[in-house]
């Protein structure tokens, strides 16, 4: 038994740090590999060593130089813009709809309130891709398949169902504020925009972030909707097509570079909004 408190504390800290460091390395290593090899100059596909021998920016340059790998069907800049556009629009629409639905469930009292909330919960239980075939044929009937608008619709129209966290947050804002505003003559609509929203920065940020990230990661739905329309692919399907057997020999390194670049807009947004993010998640979770 070690008597000294100081020594004991140092030892246990050392142990904890070692474990955390090992976990950290394991967690970071794929990203480190990706980043390093996106700058690799030699060879075409994978190499049997970790650190590249020669470094270059060429993979990034090639990525934006459409046709450099020999195929006009790989058009990363176009896919990047497609995704950005879809992400921005679906982010705006879904943020507004989530907040509006949450406000309604949190502040307004109407007959079917509880039931609608339950329906929302139940619908949320089904995995999104269960209805994919139906969604595809509905969109086709509206002549919207192979179209970016279809993606915006898919990503933002169901968003209102994800109201739980922000409703939880709104519930923590005292009703006294609403009442005071009502006495001053504000309508429910004015209360939402002028009183509740300015006080809900964390949860707005959280909603913005989650709905912005969606289109960058979604693969299945986008693939089904776009089919063979390569110029309308999003980055997720586009990058996957780069490592299909047909393209992997020429595009593997560009795929690595592309994967790094996909992280850029999300990271930027995240850094900008980070201080609100943690606050938003914890605040919403307190009272659900």
């Amino acid at each position: 038994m070690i008597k000294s408190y100081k020594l004991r504390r140092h030892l246990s800290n050392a142990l904890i740090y070692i474990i955390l460091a090992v976990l950290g390395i394991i967690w970071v290593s794929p990203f480190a590999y990706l980043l390093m090899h996106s700058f690799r100059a030699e060879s075409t596909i994978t190499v049997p060593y970790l650190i590249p021998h020669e470094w270059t920016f060429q993979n990034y340059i090639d990525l934006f130089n459409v046709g450099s790998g020999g195929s006009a069907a790989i058009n990363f800049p176009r896919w990047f813009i497609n995704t950005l556009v879809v992400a921005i629009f679906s982010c705006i629409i879904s943020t507004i709809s989530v907040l509006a639905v949450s406000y309604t469930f949190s502040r307004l009292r109407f007959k079917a309130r509880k039931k609608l909330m339950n329906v929302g919960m139940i619908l949320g239980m089904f995995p999104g891709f269960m209805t994919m075939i139906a969604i595809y044929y509905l969109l086709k009937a509206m002549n919207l398949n192979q179209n970016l608008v279809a993606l915006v619709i898919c990503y933002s129209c169901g968003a209102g169902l994800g109201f739980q966290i922000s409703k939880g947050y709104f519930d923590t804002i005292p009703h006294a504020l609403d009442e005071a505003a009502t006495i001053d003559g504000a309508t429910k609509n004015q209360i939402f925009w002028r009183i509740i929203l300015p006080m809900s920065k964390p949860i707005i940020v959280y909603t913005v972030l989650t709905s912005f990230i969606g289109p960058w990661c979604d693969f299945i739905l986008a693939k089904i909707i776009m089919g063979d329309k390569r110029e309308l692919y999003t980055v997720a399907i586009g990058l996957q097509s780069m490592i299909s057997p047909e393209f992997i020999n020429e595009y593997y390194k560009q795929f690595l570079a592309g994967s790094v670049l996909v992280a850029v807009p999300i990271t930027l947004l995240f850094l900008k909004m980070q201080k609100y993010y943690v606050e938003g998640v914890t605040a919403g979770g307190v009272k659900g």
Partner: protein
Amino acid sequence: MKKILAVLLAGMMAVTAFAGCGGQTTESSGSSSGSGESESTAIEVKDSIVDESVFGDENNISLKVWAPDKAVALVKQQVEDFKAAYPGKTFTKIEVVAQGEGDAGTQLLNDASVAADVFSFASDQLNKLVDAKVIADVAFKDYVTQENAPETITAATIKDTLYAYPETNDNGYYLVYDNTVVNEEQAKTLEGILEACRAAGKKFIFNCGDGFYGCTFAFTGGVKIDGFEEDGVTQKFTDYDEAEAVATLQAFSKLMHDYKGTFTSLDVAQIASGFSTGTLGAGVDGSWNTVADQDALKDKFGAAKLPTINVNGTDKQLISMFGYKYIGVNASSQFPAAAQILALYLSGEKCQEQRAEQLGWGPSNKAVQEKPVVADSPVLQAIKQQSENACVQVNIAATLWSPMGNLGNKLIAEQTNPDDAEFFKKLLKETIENIRDEG
């Protein structure tokens, strides 16, 4: 109340999902019979070009073509030639879209009405396309049969109906080697290749864990498939000599263990990469990677049919899986006659020769097979020789690949003892049972 609501909602969703599928099937099967009727098989064809009357009343034609990415530029040019060959017709738009052959079938099955009218695909997808009735039968059967190699016709014929225009006769794998490491004589035997690679400190890649390549072990041992049982899904095997098959598997496993570190099982995508870094001496690679391998090896590029393996004193030729590529016509095409005529043109002698020259694709057309572009190409010759020692990739059950891949993985696994004949006997029996789904 909540429960009822949940059930109701779930039910509604399920019904909508099925409604979607149902709609598609009826639609495509309907138009399939339509296009069949509009064509007769006795039409005069000369140099893959028909009389304009075959178009019927179709005009202002708009078509979509799927071709693998590498071929898009060439196919676009061939489409222009096609338009020029029919000056009396107006073509609003013929679009050529990049779509890999391996994926074409799946894409077509997803939604035939937005898919291409004319598409390239690999022979293994034919069955499911025919089952789903999304592929139209060939309108110019007599001409196509007479122009192309008989095996490519047989493989595309199901119950006396020819379903696709043969495009290539090269969809398989062969031996690629660095001729500074392995010489021509050594490339004839697996033992020679491995010895040469080990001596040079380089690797040999054979993707054992993928059933497409892994089936080689069983096939070399004398196991043969013979289409389907009567149920149409269970793979049928001919009788084989178990002792011989087991001895062959043991011989493979022994080589893998004797040359541990040299004989590696990696994805074929690693082969071109391995040649360019100089870590690889030889590999068994697919014909579609030829250009990448040639770029990596340049003057050192060597190609041959698969080697032999010595089983108890006799050299046995490795038997591979081998397929063809076809051009199919979408049964729900808006312009069925024009689509057939375009497919006929694209699969014709002139187009096949251009593809052999510019893309290195092995032709199925008998006349092109005799031409110097094929006869003088070591790669196409290697593929041709291997095709004579191969199992044709048609009527293959979907359950074949995983058990065959598993067999390959077991052969190379470290804990496997190559001398344990009982183990291999059991492994082979289980593999066949799993393929036939009897396990």
